[in-house]
């Protein structure tokens, strides 16, 4: 397994995420019914479908920055709601951090994730523990950086990110929502898993799967 993630792998990641969202759309909407407005699955599925068609449209794969930018723009332009600007901003900021290049090393990828995360915070003004997608995103990016910092191999690090996202997602169940639509519920939001954290966990699991598979076929 190489320590380098190239443009083809990143593209596979996005396509894989799109497929996972499509597959889990009903579940995401179901979670959003309980503490929101029953549209997170259809929102994100619509957006990732647009991303996939943008990626397919492009015969010559552009470099990483432009590809992520196109994807982020597609999300911003087709999703709406809270998740459109948030996921869109995530990829747009990743794009800026990555710049015009054909591959990212682990540290560059970590920096791009961190930039994406900061974009989500800037856009949504939520904090850790508010019961939002941040509660999967923050632990994922933290875990990725920490694993790399401890010198773990890339595969282990990205797997740790996915594991952390899922743990964060699970932990949202116990939280009281302070941001997003679930916040209207106050105490009644406790006991329900956050839909946005659930889709973010899918995003990092897709990253682990494609970035590892994409390199060593495992």
């Amino acid at each position, binding site marked *: 397994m190489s320590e380098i993630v190239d443009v083809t792998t990143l593209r596979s990641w996005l396509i894989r995420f799109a497929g996972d969202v499509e597959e889990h759309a009903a579940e995401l909407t179901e979670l959003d019914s309980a503490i929101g*407005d029953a549209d997170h699955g259809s929102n994100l599925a*619509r957006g990732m479908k647009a991303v996939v068609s943008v990626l397919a449209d492009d015969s010559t794969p552009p470099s990483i920055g432009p590809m992520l930018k196109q994807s982020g723009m597609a999300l911003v*332009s087709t999703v709406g*709601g*809270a998740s*459109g600007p*948030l996921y869109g901003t995530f990829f747009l900021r990743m794009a800026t951090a990555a710049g015009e290049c054909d591959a990212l090393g682990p540290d560059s990828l970590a920096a791009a994730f961190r930039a994406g995360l900061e974009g989500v915070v800037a856009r949504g003004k939520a904090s850790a523990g508010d019961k939002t997608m941040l509660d999967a995103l923050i632990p994922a990016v933290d875990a990725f950086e920490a694993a790399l910092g401890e010198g773990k191999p890339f595969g282990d690090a990205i797997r740790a990110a996915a594991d952390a996202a899922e743990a964060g997602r699970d932990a949202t169940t116990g939280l009281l929502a302070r941001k997003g*639509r679930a916040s209207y519920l106050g105490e009644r939001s406790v006991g329900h898993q956050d839909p946005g954290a659930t889709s973010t966990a899918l995003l990092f699991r897709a990253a682990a799967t494609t970035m590892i598979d994409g390199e060593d076929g495992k």
Partner: protein
Amino acid sequence: MKKLINAPEDVVVEALRGMAAAHPQHLRVDTANRIVYRATPAAPGKVALISGGGSGHEPLHGGFVGPGMLDAAIAGEVFTSPVPDQVVEATRRADTGAGVVHIVKNYTGDVMNFEMAAEIAAAETGVEVVSVITDDDVAVQDSLYTAGRRGVGVTVLAEKIAGAAAEQGRPLHEVADVVRRVNENGRSMGMALTSCTVPAAGRPTFDLPEHEMEIGVGIHGEPGRRRVPLAPAKEVAAMLLEPILEDLRTAVGDTKDVIAFVNGMGATPLLELYLMYGEVSALLAKAGVNVVRSLVGPYITSLDMAGCSVTLLRVDDDLVRLWDAPVNTPGLRWGA
């Protein structure tokens, strides 16, 4: 799911197409961008008033486009705020040179998408935009640390009243101030007897047992403050009115003259809304509140949800005059 639709993903565009066909003299609909415009654009120099949000709340917002009210309305997917591109396009097209006011209901998605749109509009079009957020739903505890209160019934009144102010030729910041004034002096609270069903979801957003109702529900079927046994209309009116009056008194002081608005959530018939209005008006009389104008009907709905909301707006003479000014839209029309 029982709905008069074709495919769920086509609902919004097909309904817009129907609106265009139904109001050829009054509206122009850009179905590609899902924007409803006045058939006859306002004269240069008039501040443009724009609103938008998720679909499923009709006649809000598209039904309020026309002389005396909105210049353009932007339709998102059902219960999903529109995307920035749509807002930018509507802003660019509606501007007559005098600037554009965005009326945005306080939902995370709406706020973020309109915010991004305002950023893009500023960078790319040079149009001056002032955004005002409505957040009148007392069912939600207001707090700096949360998403805050939801924008509901007051939005209808703000669009009418600020629309009249814009029509009078007031400048951008004054029109925006009117929206703010309406929002600050208005409070709402809703309730549901049944859930709505989002077409793409295919089943009710929440289950409400046969003998219960949801007090403090949102217009997207967001669960409310609490679930209580069904009660007579008289008691429902009190459950909605008391927190509104309490909140108004704390926030803006004594409440003398109001516009009272009983809104239908979509599936509740007018017979029941009038009955509710009778209860509300009796309670207000008892509370010493003077109703100077009223509005009863389904104006900010939640698809096929059964239920209602009550909105009170404290008014002064200026606001009443603006309310009385002519308006000519599919959803609200008088004096024209």
